[in-house]
């Protein structure tokens, strides 16, 4: 039986990275960077979510089928967001 036992030190390292990234998000939000603020905030959030999914949720070690399901979920989410937003970004204000 193949078990993917992730070492404790990996979990501790991931937790520390997540906490550091949380502090960075907070500090960056206190500085005015214009439109970059939201871009940086989302980039950090995406990094944190990737860490949680890959290590805590073991996506890194999961079967190919599980990865396909995750990829499909993300693809549908992208379709939901982009197709809805095509309306809002193409509207002319009268």
């Amino acid at each position, binding site marked *: 039986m193949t078990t993917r036992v992730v070492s404790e030190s990996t979990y501790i390292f991931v937790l520390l990275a997540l906490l550091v990234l949380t502090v960075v998000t907070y500090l960056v939000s206190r500085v005015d960077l214009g439109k970059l603020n939201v871009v940086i905030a989302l980039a950090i959030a995406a990094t944190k979510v990737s860490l949680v999914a890959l290590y*805590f*949720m073991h996506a890194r070690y999961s079967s190919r*089928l*599980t990865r396909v399901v995750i990829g499909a*979920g993300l693809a549908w989410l992208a379709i939901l967001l982009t197709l809805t937003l095509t309306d809002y970004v193409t509207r002319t204000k009268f």
Partner: protein
Amino acid sequence: MSEARSYLELHFRDLEQQRETAELGMWVFLMTELLLFGGLFTAYTVYRSTYPQTFALASHELSAPIGTINTAVLLVSSFGVALSVHGAQVNGRKRLLVGLAVALLLGIVFLVLKGYEYHDHYVHHQVPGLDFAWTRPQPEQAQVFFFLYFLMTGVHAVHLIIGIAIVTVLWFQSYRRRYSPEYYTPVEVGGLYWHFVDVIWIFLYPLLYLIR
């Protein structure tokens, strides 16, 4: 081996296949959850891009320190769940029980802090539908922000309450020595759910609390 066989449902070839099937099932469910929250995030994106200034003003009414502390609380709780899975895998009973207990307690801490925030909004007339009041310009836009805030954090909190119920059951089952390195699927699958609730909060935190 006789013990291992008792865990095996008769429609599976072996425990490995049984565990993978359960994990896949949870991931499929979590992807439907992703689309549920995705709809809310889409609504949020549309309204924030339509009313950027009012969303920033309204966001400043939320307590960024509490939001930050709650983010850390959920991250450490996820770490607890990850440790408990590790404990189950290596037959570390203490680690399994402590990891789940840490997650459970921190989940409750999160809800208490969230409740404190909700009460604060109630006192300051920031709950849409009750007695919403906004002395600054564009109250109708601020109301949309607060509606989305309550809807998104509320749906998230409901998920966390379900997560707490799941972890409570897992703790008692672990205490009764129901899990072993051969069979710990409920811990792994329940853990996936807990981490997903954390994942949603990781996005809610900057989007609601940290708008400039």
